Every structure is written in structure tokens, then in C-alpha cells.
């Protein structure tokens, strides 16, 4: 009996020894909180995680009726509209340039990749305190001063919304290198024979080759990169929170969904029910967008 349970060569035993800890971790740290959160979303859970007052869908009505939540979704949309194309274009540009290098390729690859290792919190603080602070000795304002312009309070100006410049540039700097490496790997997988054949057929190097050979061949990588970028944009929290929050709270602009949920559920409000409902709505949106995007791009289908 025991022998049968263990399987041939004790394979079952080894299977659980190797996967068990991870399955356990997944259950304890992912599935249980997930299910608990879904449960909480149907209760009036204020300052408690073991609520007793069932309220049905009213938390969902609250969160969807809250203009702060809907505007946070809009904030996300605007943010991803900026950050996804910008990161993709920059990463691709960097990848193409590094790919063409004859020498010091590893050096440049590392240099551009390095910011990935930097923490979002640290980078945000540098952006906020030294580069884009509002006083005359901030780096950006020092540059403006050379041209005789007045200093700009980058993070406090809503007309025009200069804060977007700060938010987008910090993420661009942090993540461009990482996606460059992904695209570089994609570039290296394109067979040389294709370029040779194109050259024989009279394709000019440069734009024409890029347009008809490189870009289509990068399709699978590009799809994965864009998908990751969108999901990451959805999960944006660190740089927004660290750039814009003050001791007293968060301004009513540039408030992405996670920052909104943080203040609802984990601030002094402790409205865990409403917060969980918001989290479920957000998770559904991410799932739908991801599935739609994958279908649209044909992710997972066999390359023709």
C-alpha cells in the first residue's frame, strides 16, 4: 500500500518534497488571502477581518459609485497611454542600437540594464528631492534658470500637469533597460539568413529592413513586452505614492487604483470590505484586459 502511494522509484514522494513547499506557500500567501478578500468584499468589514454583517453587493455599489475610484481608473488609462508606448519605443531603440554595436556591447547592455536594479522607492525620492524639487536649486529648475525661466513646482502644478513628466520619466528610466534586454534577446533570435535574403532581394538596410524583417520577426517578443508593460502599469503604486503622498494624505490627482485602495483599506479608514470590493473589481479588469489583449495579439498561437 505504502509502496503504491510512493509510486515507482518513490516518484510521488519526491514530487511532493520538491513542489510541496511551493504549493503550501502559494496556498497560504496567495489563495487564502485571495479568497478571504473576496469574502470580505461582501461584508461590512470596518476595522475587522472577521466581519459578521453581510451586506451583499453594497460594497461594490459603493466603490463603483465613488468618483475617486472611477477617476483612478482614468488615471491608470492616461498613465498607461503614456508609459506603454514610451517604454516600448525607448527599449526598442536602445535594443537596436546596442545590437548594432561591434565592441563594448556587454558594457552598454549592463549600463542600460543597471537602473532595473534600483528600487522604485529610492528612484522616486531622488526624482522628488533632487531632480524635480520645486525650489531654485533642484536640477531641473537649475537648468531652467540658465535660460532665465522661473522655477517650476513640478509635483504641485496641475495646470499644466507637470507631475506626469516626473512620474513617467522615473518609470521610464527604471524599466526601459529591462525591456531592452528582452527585446535584445528577441533580436538575437532573428536568423541572419533572412537579412541576407532581403539584401539579395534589394532591400535597403535601415528603415526598409526594419519595417519588413526586424519588426515582424520581433512580434512574439513585442507582444509579451507590451502585455507585461500594461500589467505593470496597472500595478503602479510605489512611484506614485512616494512622489505625491504627503504626511497628510494624497492629492486628488494622479491617484492610480492601488493608491486609492491603499488609502481606503489600509489607512486610518480601515474599510476592508470596500477595499476588497475595489480589489476584486480591479483584478477582474486586469484579467479581462489581459485576455482581450492576448487574443488581439494572438499570444500563444503558433507563429506562422
Amino acid at each position, binding site marked *: 500500500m505504502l509502496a503504491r502511494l510512493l509510486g515507482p522509484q518513490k516518484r510521488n514522494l519526491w514530487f511532493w518534497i520538491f513542489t510541496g513547499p511551493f504549493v503550501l506557500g502559494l496556498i497560504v500567501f496567495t489563495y487564502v488571502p485571495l479568497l478571504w478578500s473576496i469574502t470580505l468584499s461582501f461584508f461590512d468589514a470596518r*476595522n475587522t477581518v472577521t466581519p459578521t454583517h453581510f451586506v451583499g453587493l453594497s460594497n461594490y455599489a459603493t466603490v463603483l459609485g465613488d468618483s475617486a475610484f472611477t477617476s483612478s481608473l482614468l488615471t491608470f488609462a492616461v498613465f498607461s497611454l503614456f508609459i506603454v508606448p514610451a517604454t516600448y519605443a525607448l527599449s526598442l531603440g536602445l535594443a537596436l542600437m546596442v545590437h548594432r554595436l561591434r565592441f563594448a556591447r556587454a558594457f552598454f547592455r549592463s549600463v542600460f540594464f543597471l537602473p532595473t536594479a534600483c528600487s522604485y522607492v529610492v528612484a522616486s525620492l531622488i526624482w522628488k528631492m533632487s531632480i524635480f524639487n520645486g525650489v531654485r536649486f533642484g536640477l531641473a529648475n537649475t537648468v531652467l534658470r540658465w535660460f532665465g525661466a522661473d522655477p517650476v513646482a513640478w509635483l504641485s502644478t496641475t495646470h499644466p500637469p507637470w507631475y506626469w513628466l516626473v512620474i513617467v520619466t522615473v518609470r521610464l528610466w527604471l524599466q526601459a533597460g529591462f525591456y531592452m534586454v528582452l527585446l535584445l534577446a528577441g533580436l538575437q533570435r532573428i536568423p541572419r539568413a533572412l537579412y541576407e535574403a532581403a539584401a539579395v532581394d534589394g532591400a535597403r538596410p535601415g528603415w526598409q529592413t526594419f519595417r519588413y524583417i526586424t519588426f515582424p520577426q520581433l512580434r512574439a517578443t513585442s507582444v509579451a513586452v507590451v502585455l507585461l508593460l500594461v500589467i505593470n502599469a496597472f500595478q503602479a503604486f*510605489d512611484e506614485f505614492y512616494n512622489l505625491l503622498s504627503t504626511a497628510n*494624505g494624497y492629492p486628488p490627482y494622479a491617484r492610480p487604483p492601488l493608491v486609492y485602495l491603499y488609502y481606503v483599506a489600509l489607512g*486610518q479608514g480601515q474599510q476592508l470590505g470596500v477595499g476588497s470590493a475595489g480589489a476584486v473589481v480591479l483584478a477582474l479588469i486586469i484579467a479581462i484586459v489581459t485576455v482581450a489583449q492576448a487574443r488581439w495579439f494572438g499570444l500563444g498561437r503558433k507563429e506562422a
Partner: protein
Amino acid sequence: MTMSESTRSDRASLPLPHLGRRGLLAAGGGLAAAGLLTACGSNTGRGSGGAGSGPALSQWYHQYGEAGTEQAVKRYAAAYKPADVTVQWRPGNYDQQTAAALLTSNGPDVFEVNGPTLDQIQGGQVVDLTAEIEAVRSDFNQAVLAPKIFDGKVWAVPQVIDMQMLFYRKSLLKKAGVNPPQTLDELVDAAGRLTTKDVKGLFLGNDGGAGVMGGTPLFAAGLELVTAQGTVGFDDPAAATALGKLHTLYKNKSLLLGAPADWSDPSAFTQGLTAMQWCGLWAVPQVQKALGDDFGVLPFPRDGASGRPAVPVGAYGSAVSARSKHVAAGKAFVKWLWVDRTDFQEDFSTSYGFHIPARISLAKRAAKLRTGAAAEAVRLTTEYGHANPLLWTSASTSALMDATNRIIKDGASPAAQVKAAAATAAAELKRVQKQS
């Protein structure tokens, strides 16, 4: 950070240190571990002897910036014999940490709280301390005791009072020919005239004032956040007028924005980035050291015919968790430290940073608060002090803050924004009063 790191008291003004998504999760996951650590009690600050007597209590404080405070509270705890008290000094988002810890049984027994909030009281997370405080109830500053009272019961013992006020640089005002502003209009005018290419007129925080101002401009306009009847007290044209003037400050480019340190730190003022700054009593020693006597302090100036000057005040309270295994021992300890031991209370108030003792008899005795700007701060607190009422919940706070923010920075219609914030506050007031 500086000494001002942690000494603010009005509920909305606790400093949030920087935190990332991972940090957030780690904090949540760490709670259980923190509870275990409490049980192990590494450093009780006590020497040999006396340990092991009575039940083990864990007491939490938020991190005060002033040197010596941590050692002081550990000394107090060690002097208590009936129980074995372990002090936890907690840096970081203290309000969030305690709020989360109170959900578990691994939280503190006795803790300092920037509240407690109405939800914490109604949720049964803190215990009634009325009997403990009763003998000396009238000796507490009533303005800061009031928000600790709900249903006629006292839910926390106020420790020390913190207050905010306006600092101005005498020499800069003199040079510009400006008198210390007595009305909001004069403040707007003074800030404009004090603004030069390199120095701004006024610093109300990096967000332009929406965060720290809170109810202060409304108090200065003669209004209230919540009336005695428990209804919204600022749905009034005077509120829109006062908040509209904050927009004028912003529009005139008289406000310092985006300074490296926010309003609670006097560096922008002492470094000459601004001629006037909204800060608090805690900053007085630091400003004195940097500027000598080249500064003065003012309340937030009055606005309109029925206006009065205003200063926000508040107090951290000492509360006992309802989930504690030793509620009675916790209550006895709170009574001992924050009611009986006036010598420790006095030491805590003025030996490290500047705070006003919550006990009137002690406040009168405090030598360091008898001269100069500190004495003026005490007078302003007594005459013009406003604490946020208990019924003013965090949802109302953020509604008003959002409204103020839109008025100041976007030039949104003050009347419409005040209406919107009043509607949210009215719904909140209805919710919390229905439950009681």
C-alpha cells in the same frame, strides 16, 4: 529626519514615511512576527531586579524624533513594578501599524494612539478608561480631551498637546514694510509682497496647503467642522470665501512648493526659502537655534466678520487594546503613568521636544513654556485652539482635503467644492451616529 518627525498630533498630520508595495506587504506579513517578538521582549530598558513580576504588557509608541524620548519612556516602564512592561518603539506608518495590529491578538496591550478613531471605538477595539481618569478629569485640557470622549466615556488618556502655528521672519517683514498679518486678506497681501525671485512669501506645505490646513481656515472663518448637534458645520458661503483666498495665494505664486522638506520641518523657513511658514510648537527650539530671535509666531489669521484666529491642536492618547490578555493590568498601568505619575508626564512633555502637557496644572508649571515663542504658543492654544472632533472621520478628512486641493490648485469653484465635501461629511456623520 528632524525632531519634528513625529510630534504632530492632529489626526490628519501624522507623517507617512516612504513605503513601497513590497514594504507594505512585508509590513502586513510581519505583523504576526511582530507579535511574537513582543512576547519575547528583547529590551525592556530595565536593569536587573523586579523583572518577571506580574503579567507581561507590551506598550507601543510611535517614533518621536527628539533624542532621549525613547530612553525616557523605557525608564518610565521599568519603574512600574506591578507588571513587566515592554516598550516597543515603532518607526514607520504608526497609524497603519496599530490599526492592523489591533485586528490580531498579537497587537499591543497599551498603545499610544493618534485618536482613537470613532471606528476603533465603535468597533470595540479599545477599552473604557473613564474610571481611571475620573479623579483628575477636570485637570485635563478640555479641548484635547473632548475628542477622546464618546458616549460619555473616555477612551484614551491624553499624553501631550501638539499645536500648529504660523512662523514669520521679523527681519524680512520689516524689509518689505509688512506688519504681521492679522487677517487672511493681510496674509495674502503680505505673502505677495514678501515674495522675491529667490524667497517665497509663505510655505503651507508642498501641496499648497490642502493637506495641513484641514479645518483651520474654516475655524478662522468662524465655522466648525461638526456642530454640537452633530451636523456639518461648514456648509456656508464664508467657507468658500476663506478657501478661495488660499487659491489667491497659489495663483499669485506667493507659495513655496516642492521644498525638499515638508511643512512639519522648519528647514525651508530657517534656510531662507520662505519668509513665513506654517509649522508647530515642536519646531521652536530648532528655529531658535538657527534664527535667534529673528522670528515670531501667529495663529492662522481670522477671515470675515465673524472670524476668529485659529490654531489646530491635538493630543496623542494612551489607550488599552480590547484584545489584550491583561486588560485590567493595562488599565492600571495607564492610570499609573498618565494619571498618577505627574513627574514623568512633566519630564516627557518638555525635556526632549516642546509639547504642552495635557494636564492644566502641569502646563502652568512648565518652565520652558513660559518665555518667548513657546509662551505665545501656549497662549494661542488656550485662546484659539481647535481639535478635530471625534465625529470627523478619515473619510470626511479626505473629502475636505480633496476639495481644498482642487480649490487651491485647479481654481475649482469654492462653493461647489465646499458643497461636495459637506455632502460626504453629512453622509459620514449620519453613518457614525446611526450606529451609536
